[in-house]
């Protein structure tokens, strides 16, 4: 399974949920797979996608799906402790783990070595964690997480991508404004 496959499964599965997607290729793939007002594409601040998602989940009741990556999680590991302890029941944290910094040339991360991100999430206090390795598993687990209330961590093992994605054709303020409008509509 490549990241584009995982993103497609997620975007097919979700209905009205709010999406916050990681900087670089993950956001670009979400955008080109299924652009919608309820997607917030991160454009800078590497590592903060899970934090933005937490702030959003704690401040309103709708379900938030965070599409994070291994490199991004590793640069903001403290976020897992904050999220687990705050424990919003409307947040699904998806870690797409290709074991490398996929947007900058596939340089390896420590997630490809000895570090198991699901184990890290568990140790930080996440009560519901899952590890999935194919599209079928991802679809099933995500379906369960979407249907039920409760904080979830889904560790998705994927292959490093070879192809690059096209850019997002929206300016940041438009991304923000339409997202906020869709939330308060």
């Amino acid at each position, binding site marked *: 399974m490549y990241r584009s496959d995982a993103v497609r499964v997620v975007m097919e599965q979700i209905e009205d949920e709010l999406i916050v997607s990681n900087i670089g290729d993950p956001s670009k793939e979400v955008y080109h797979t299924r652009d919608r007002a309820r997607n917030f594409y991160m454009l800078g601040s590497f590592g903060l996608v899970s934090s933005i998602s*937490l*702030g959003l989940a704690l401040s309103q009741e709708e379900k938030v799906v965070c599409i994070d990556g291994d490199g991004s999680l590793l640069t903001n590991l403290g976020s897992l402790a904050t999220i687990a302890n705050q424990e919003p029941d409307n947040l699904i944290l998806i870690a797409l783990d290709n074991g490398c910094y996929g947007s900058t040339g596939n340089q390896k991360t420590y997630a490809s070595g000895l570090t198991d991100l699901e184990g890290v999430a568990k140790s930080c206090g996440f009560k519901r964690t899952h590890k999935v390795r194919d599209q079928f598993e991802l679809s099933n687990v995500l379906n369960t997480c979407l249907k039920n209330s409760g904080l979830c961590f889904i560790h998705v093992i994927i292959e490093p991508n070879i192809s690059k994605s096209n850019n997002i054709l929206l300016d940041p303020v438009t991304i923000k404004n339409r997202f906020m409008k869709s939330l308060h509509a």
Partner: protein
Amino acid sequence: MKVNTTADEKQTIQLLHSGSHNDRCLRDQVFSQPEIRILRILRKFGYDFGVTLPCNKIKKLIDLVEKEPSMKVIPVTREEEGVGICAGAYLAGKKPFMLIQSSGLGNSLNALASLIKTFEIPLLVLASYRGYYEEKIQAQIPLGNALPRMLDALEIPFMILKKDCKELEKACEANIDDQAPFAVFLSPELFEDV
């Protein structure tokens, strides 16, 4: 009579919320404390979501804010993380602020520029100003000295609150209009006993 906020915390909170005038003298004295004045200004301007990281100089203020019922307050592990959480809260309609040490403002600069400025998000950053006034820890000096120039370079407006808490209202007003970050340095002299 000296009022110790920590010891008389319950009483302070009660005074703050009851609107009672039974003990006017005590109330006036409590309300003249800089921590209470800052909290009341934040409330007046509708700030309802905060992230905190401790600093010894503002421990009373952090304690008060964390107990304030009109605010959701999240302790964070690193300031940059707090910037992200505040951005998410803003997207959901909250009015966010940070309460941190100035050293942590240094940790947050990329996030303030690439997230808060880029997406035009109003964020009030209250930073206990270290390396500025009678600083005893040498390691605080280099960043403390440079921070105003660093913020200038990033075109992030800021003010240094030294004596008069009321100045904070100007920062709150600017923060409403600007859709941008605004940093307020809380000098240690603000919390000195008069």
